């Protein structure tokens, strides 16, 4: 029972035509997305809620000289499209001038994108979701566990156009399953997740099993004092801390002295060796491991980028305005980021660790100091002591105060394999390895389980 697919191309043309008719001197940028999102939540070993939502949205930005404004609607009938365009024109006419306004982009040449759309993922129905959830939350006989989780999948088509002739069109799908298992006595908790643009790639039985195993092994944790430890961070933890660094890699904020990447006395840190030679951060294009659109939110063609090459800052993100002002090439905001893996297996990360801590994931990370990128947050869903190269016993959770810069500076081993990490928005796709890092500040004990 699927509604008719909205005519995005027709809506795009109608919006651009309306802009031309209502304000011939205006430059117009139009973005359309048609999307189906469906999900199933479960908790306490039973389904709790489940939904299926269709929505198409149109966003139009109108620029009149140096004045600009944008307007969104989710009604794609001709009258509503015209209303949205008129509203943007009306707002642009009275908006104060913006000296930083940029003209809309013309036709772009896009890199070949990795396949990101899977028809099977786009057509999953309620019965298939229920079957997957049942398998993810199956308990073994005698297991005293409470399972909670979330299964979601989406299919999206994105279409962009400008009055200067840009046209972009991309389809993608995605599926995520995450499971949290808690022991009946409330002393243990474990978590696992899987993401892919193909729902068929996901192993719901394995995700459930990893979460259950972690919960059982983490039960009745023993006390470990706060302090600076060698830690092995699973990919979800690495990604969460890394993201706070990605957000600060804006060239303008650095050039204006408002970020870690600002150089004392002016300028930015491009060219500086900050990390060891094993740290490389890039945004490849066409990599099947990063199934992303080849254009940014404004339609700008995304080029393959190396942000940090063997420890040296090679690039920061330049908006079109800032690139023009500084005589650089605009990079746009990347949609895919890869922290290159190392050579280790997961087990090898524990090798040689006399006393350390294995951390499953982080929670509630918040910046403390934008200058040093110091972040605070907590551990959750599985923290274990490593002694003499082996994981020995569960320990309490911690609040940590640490910087992604220090995490990468002090990293001395990474897994060869990289993993997609769950993020709050599907605009960005990120892959990271698990890693071992030293002197990690586990600042205080958290009694939470």
């Amino acid at each position, binding site marked *: *029972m699927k509604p008719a697919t909205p005519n995005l191309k027709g809506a795009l043309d109608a919006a651009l035509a309306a802009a031309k008719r209502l304000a011939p001197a205006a430059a117009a940028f139009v973005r359309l997305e048609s999307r189906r999102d469906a999900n199933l939540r479960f908790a*306490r070993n039973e*389904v709790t809620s489940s939904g299926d939502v269709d929505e198409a949205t149109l966003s139009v930005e109108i620029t009149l000289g140096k004045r600009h404004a944008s307007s969104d609607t989710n009604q794609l009938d001709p009258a509503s499209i015209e209303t949205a365009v008129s509203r943007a024109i009306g707002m642009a006419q009275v908006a104060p*001038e913006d*000296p930083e306004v940029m003209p809309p982009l013309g036709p772009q040449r896009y890199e070949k994108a990795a396949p990101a759309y899977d028809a099977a993922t786009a057509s999953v129905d309620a*019965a298939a979701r229920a079957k997957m959830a049942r398998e993810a939350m199956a308990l073994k006989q005698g297991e005293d566990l409470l399972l909670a989780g*979330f299964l979601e999948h989406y299919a999206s088509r994105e279409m962009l156009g400008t009055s200067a002739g840009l046209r972009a069109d991309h389809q993608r799908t995605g599926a995520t399953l995450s499971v949290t298992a808690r022991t009946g006595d409330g002393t243990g908790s474990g978590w696992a997740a899987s993401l892919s643009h193909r729902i068929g790639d996901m192993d719901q039985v394995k995700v459930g099993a990893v979460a259950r195993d972690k919960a059982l092994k983490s039960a009745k944790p023993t006390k470990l004092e706060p302090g600076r430890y060698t830690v092995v961070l699973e990919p979800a933890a690495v990604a969460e801390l890394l993201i706070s660094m990605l957000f600060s890699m804006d060239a303008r904020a650095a050039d204006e002295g408002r970020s870690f990447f600002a150089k004392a006395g002016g300028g930015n840190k491009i060219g500086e060796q900050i990390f060891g030679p094993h740290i490389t951060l890039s945004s490849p294009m066409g990599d099947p491991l990063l199934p992303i659109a080849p254009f940014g939110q404004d339609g700008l063609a995304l080029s393959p980028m190396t942000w940090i090459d063997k420890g040296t800052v090679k690039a920061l993100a330049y908006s079109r305005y800032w690139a023009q002002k500084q005589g650089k090439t605009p990079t746009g905001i990347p949609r895919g980021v890869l922290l290159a893996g190392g050579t280790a297996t997961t087990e090898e990360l524990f090798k040689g660790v006399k006393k350390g801590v294995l951390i499953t994931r982080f929670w509630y990370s918040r910046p403390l100091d934008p200058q040093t990128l110091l972040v605070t947050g907590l551990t959750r869903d599985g923290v274990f002591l490593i002694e003499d190269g082996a994981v020995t016993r569960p320990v309490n959770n911690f609040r940590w105060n640490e910087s992604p810069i220090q995490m990468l500076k002090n990293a001395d081993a990474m897994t060869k394999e990289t993993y997609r990490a769950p993020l709050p928005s599907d605009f960005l796709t990120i892959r990271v390895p698990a890693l071992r890092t030293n002197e990690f500040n586990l600042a205080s004990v958290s009694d939470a389980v």
Partner: protein
Amino acid sequence: MELTRRRVLKGTGALAGLALASRAGLADARGLLTDPLLEEVIGRALSAAKKAGATYADIRIVRRRTESIFTRDDHIANVEGNESYGLGVRVIADGAWGFSAASQVAPAAAERAAQLAVEIARANAPLLQRPVQLAPVKAVVDTWQTPLERNPFKISLAEKSDFLLTINGALLKVPGIKHCFSSFQGLGEWKLFASSEGAHVEQDLIRIRPAYTATAIDATSGEFESRNHDISPIQAGWEYVAKSTMLADAPRIGEEAVQKLKSPSVTPGKKHLILVPSHLWLTIHESVGHPTELDRALGYEANFAGTSFLTVDKLSKFQFAAPHLSFYADKTTPTGLATCGYDDDGVKTQKWDVVRNGKFVGYQTTREQAGWINEPQSRGCSYAQDFRSFPFQRMPNVSLEPGSKDLGVKDLIAATDDGILIHGEGSYSIDHQRYNFQFGGQMFYEVKGGKVTRSLRDVAYQASTPDFWKSCDMLGGAREWEMGGSFWDGKGEPGQVNAVSHGCPPARFAQINVLNTSRRKGRG
């Protein structure tokens, strides 16, 4: 909760009986949606749900408008005006919930959404351990609107942007201020809720969020500090902004950013904290608001937002705070961001205790949840952020009652020998059971011998929730009770945001662990 034809008819019949006068005031908020269309959409959704086998059904038709103006330094950085319409149909079939939503407010789309919602419910029913049971509620036909003087959506863009740019001008005049950002966001939420039990509730809520930040940079050292104005988002009209001291405060806010940059870094250790409402509201939100959510306490949010240390066995037994502290929840306080007439289950909003004389006594609940703790009625906390979202338990306004003595922040300072006074909200983080938290702020002042001596920087405090609230040894009175709030409280999967306010007087907390959050010169 048997769905009968009589009930469906009663529901739609009630529409015809509505006093036109009460709905006329809402016509403007409905936008493109006309009465005959709405009636047809409601009727088609509810009857399609019944026909497909639903034992309960409701529909929410929502129009959501946002307007945002962002400025940077001397110019407008972005202006946006967004509008969306849609309908969401929620059903119970075979004892399970099903939900489907569509962005077309049309009879065919409503019917299709209802059928799909029932299909989903039926597919999920085998994964249930017990059927969903809703606490009874009186089905009402009513309307509710945010009381306001000047609808922000009718104020010209020029007036709003002039106001912001005038503030920026004042900030940039302050020596040392290199950048400033100001913004205004308006959120209009019109919704019509109708259920198979005959409820028909139309509401129009207007919320606004004015804000600005000044950034001071020391070009030589490369160090920078920012100071946000302490104004809170609120449920009100433009009059709140026009009557505020935002513009008059700009020179002071700029000077405070510069002063922060020159301030000495705090020496960590145990200190008394004096926390004023512009700061303390956020601590209440995280450490009182969230742990008293029943779904968290029972594990329903375990996979994302987390659980709560306030488990059901602690209800009416656990000493949560010092005996002179009482917290209440409500969705009725005027200007509160969570305030409305009815929740998204159609339950009339109310006020109740969550902590009385320091003891934990109440949870936040919905119709589905009331029975989980054997309560006869819902507390009216159901909310969905938009048409496409499934309604679930969201936080009401949760506030700290003022103390009985007429104390103000000056009295708290005068009584403190060694402490820190904190204004404004800063960095915040709390664990997934709401025990261990760490909060920063905007401005920090050293208090010595009953006087403010100098400003400090790099301050955060860390504590465990019950220890913190038990350490409260001085509480301000009603005169300085104020509300702060958030536009973006996140919860659920898929994530939804909820706007919520928290009121409190200034208060003092004894011997709290203060940290230094800077790494400059090897600290931290």
